[in-house]
């Protein structure tokens, strides 16, 4: 009997320790996001995003534009064209001078008007706190006069207007007390609370210049685990969840209250060849490897159809994207090209030239789970034509590539090629000899001089022509093999209406977003 008492005693301890005195709190009806919007509950959504910002400072983080808190002078529309936003209009006075007319009647969340002086003060702070933005915008001086603001750049800088789309160029009230936690912007939503790494709570700004938001409240939450994001959508803890992992897509598609939105992103997954290595300097070897990439299979099977096959760095929907067909998977032609390059199959069935077999080291990294799979797939296809590939998985890919330039022959890589709708960025970072994303030391004189011309050309039509020509050179010389443009995959609750994700992934919470 005493022993049974003991059992009861421990069960009691167990429950007390568990904090079950709070059981009433636990079992109380869960207020689901989906249940809001009916009756007297305010209309709201919860958006779940993968990357948590370090703070809410709009000049160092992107989240404030994404969450509809701040806005920039210009934005890109769904066709990735530059459109007025806080600036009503602009003109380029000369190569270095740009004048903007700030929209009348726009106020910050604290009610103060947005004029030239406010924009000037915001930009001065932005380039002071963000070294990246300082180097991006190359601003020498800013002058304000009424609703006008005039920027002078240090050099002739035609890309200035498109770089103003950068989220860190947000216009904010610089006199706000706690910019890192509660920035005061001009967007449709204002911050009510912020917990770093966890969530931002927002309420609509009643004085929004472009029409007050349909939603009264919104929450942006952060979670870096794809499975948790997907589960949160299924449990209705989130209404919109970004970057749904491939394995969860089917479950969401089958759900009767959820849908998947999938659109090609501005990113490209590709293989970068190391120009430091003698083998890779031979264009025929690069072309042969390019033909061993089975793009349709990668897009369909490896990425479950949530990727578009690539024919160059830029999506063909862009004005400077190439209309050319993708390189077909053709092992026979690849073999012929290698033979033209002086290789022959040896007794072991391996490609050999001057007594050296064609053995290549392919670096990859786990950061984007599909990249190591692509590496394995290429390894299998390359072995069919006698190329040996040794895959090395590295942790910090950029550091590895730059610090070990004699070790690797090729790498699976991924870059946002048109972050602000202008391909000039990718040409500059990936092809100039001393560029920051050119660890393969690509040095093509024709491409370099084209980039120099591009960097001083203002006319959009000529710029697009130049970029298209650049793409042609890339297709001929194959410094990289572009594989796919991965899609942005977003899980959405059916109650969310008037909303679609954009390829630019900048404007997530908008004034038109609504719920049923």
């Amino acid at each position, binding site marked *: 009997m*005493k*022993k049974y*008492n*003991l*059992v009861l005693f*421990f*069960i009691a*301890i*167990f429950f007390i*320790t*568990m*904090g079950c005195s*709070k059981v009433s*709190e*636990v079992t109380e009806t*869960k207020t689901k996001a989906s249940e809001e919007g009916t009756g007297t509950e305010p209309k709201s959504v919860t958006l*779940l995003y993968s990357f*948590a910002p*370090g*703070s809410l400072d709009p000049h*160092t983080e*992107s989240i404030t534009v994404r969450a509809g808190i701040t806005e920039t002078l210009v934005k890109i529309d769904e066709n990735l064209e530059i459109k007025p936003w806080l600036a009503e209009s602009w003109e380029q006075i000369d190569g270095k001078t740009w004048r903007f007319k700030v929209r009348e009647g726009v106020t910050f969340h604290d009610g103060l008007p947005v004029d030239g002086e406010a924009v000037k003060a915001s930009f001065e702070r932005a380039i002071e*706190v963000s*070294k*990246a*933005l300082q*180097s*991006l915008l190359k601003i020498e001086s800013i002058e304000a006069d009424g609703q006008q603001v005039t920027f002078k750049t240090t050099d002739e800088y035609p890309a200035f207007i498109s770089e103003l789309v*950068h*989220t860190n160029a947000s216009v904010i009230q610089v006199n706000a007390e706690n910019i*890192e936690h509660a920035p005061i912007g001009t967007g449709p939503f204002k911050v009510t609370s912020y*917990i*770093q*790494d*966890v*969530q931002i709570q927002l309420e609509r700004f009643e004085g929004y210049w472009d029409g007050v938001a349909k939603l009264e409240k919104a929450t942006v*939450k*952060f*979670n*870096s*685990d794809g*499975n*948790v994001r997907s*589960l*949160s959508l*299924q*449990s209705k*803890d989130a209404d919109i969840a970004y970057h749904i992992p491939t394995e969860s897509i089917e479950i969401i598609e089958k759900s009767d209250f959820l849908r998947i939105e999938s659109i090609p992103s501005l990113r490209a997954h590709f293989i970068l060849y190391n120009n430091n290595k003698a083998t890779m300097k031979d264009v025929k070897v690069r072309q042969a490897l390019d033909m061993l990439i089975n793009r349709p299979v990668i897009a369909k099977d490896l990425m479950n159809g949530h990727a578009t096959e690539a024919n160059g760095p830029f999506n063909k929907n862009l004005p400077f994207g190439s209309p050319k067909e993708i390189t077909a998977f053709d092992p026979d032609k690849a073999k012929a090209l290698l033979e033209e390059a002086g290789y022959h199959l040896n007794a072991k069935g391996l490609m050999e030239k001057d007594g050296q077999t064609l053995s290549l080291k392919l670096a990859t990294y786990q950061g984007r789970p599909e990249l190591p799979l692509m590496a394995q797939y290429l390894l299998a296809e390359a072995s069919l034509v006698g190329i040996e590939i040794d895959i090395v998985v590295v942790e*910090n890919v*950029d*550091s*590895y590539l730059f*610090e070990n330039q004699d070790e690797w022959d090729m790498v699976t890589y991924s*870059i946002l090629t048109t*972050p*602000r709708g202008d391909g000039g*960025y990718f040409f500059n970072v990936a092809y100039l000899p*001393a*560029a*920051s994303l050119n660890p393969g030391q690509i040095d093509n004189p024709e491409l370099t001089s084209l980039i120099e011309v591009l960097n001083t050309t203002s006319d959009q039509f000529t710029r697009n022509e130049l970029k298209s020509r650049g793409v042609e050179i890339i297709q001929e010389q194959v410094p990289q093999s572009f594989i796919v443009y991965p899609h942005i995959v977003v899980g959405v609750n059916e109650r969310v209406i008037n909303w679609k994700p954009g390829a630019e992934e900048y404007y997530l919470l908008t004034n038109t977003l609504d719920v049923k």
Partner: protein
Amino acid sequence: MIQIIFARLGQMVFVIFMLTIITFSLMKLAPGDPIWTMLQVDEVIITFEEKESLREELLFDQPILIQYGNWLKNIVRLDLGKSFVSQQPVTKEIGSRIMPTLFLTMGGLAVMMGIALLLGSLAAIYQNRWIDHLSRLLAFAGASVPTFWLGLIMIYLFSVKFAILPALEHGGIKSLILPSFTLGLGLAAVYARLLRAGLLESYSQEYIRAARARGIGEWQILRVHALRSALVPVITMFGMSFGSLLGGSVVVEVLFSYPGLGKLVVDAVFKRDYPLIQGYVLFTGVVVVFVNLIVDLSYRFLDPRIRYGKGGH
């Protein structure tokens, strides 16, 4: 007693000094470049000249020993520096994470202690009976299940299937339940077995038999006599694992978007945010040494033989 405390504090300074040297060297040897993190924000065109000028500005081009010396000088002035990434003082960054981490740790410990006490004691009392086998089975299962999987299963069951607990809520007891169970269940397994072994040893002691002979009730024997001495190894192990519990709950923190120290430091490691990593190591070092000091002192309370300086039986 005071002598012991002072001796321990002396040891603490030495341990932390060694810890700073090891971490500083390891961080510098590991591949990765904080300059990338600082400049490569949202696809901005950066040239090598700009990278190198920032490197000079931050004195990263100086020899390691000088960098280490500079950092140590600031530490003496209680200045842990600023995070490279957020530009916030390291003390503020760490300070803002202490309470959430403590709550999570306490939640995890409550679950662990509850389960370990229940399973460990039942297993010892009903040795080799079905309840002991069940406890062993649960202990093996608990120790083998990876935390991230357990967390996902918890969310699936309690948030998606039964819809009784939130997957991603912050604040309040409700939001602590799933993370605490995920953290505590795995740990409980080991402690339950440890407690069972300790209790069985206690039960074999003569003073327990003497207590039974005096007619003292079974549960009182357990609570007053057996459990106290059985807790000594449990508390020792707890002291040793407290540090890792503070920083090691990172998987749970990532799964449940919990703003704790573990997540902060793992992000800092990936971004090579040296000041934050160093500050964290220093902080954890101090906490671990303090906890061990408290653990040592607690023996004196739990086991009178230690208090009175008597050994053996």
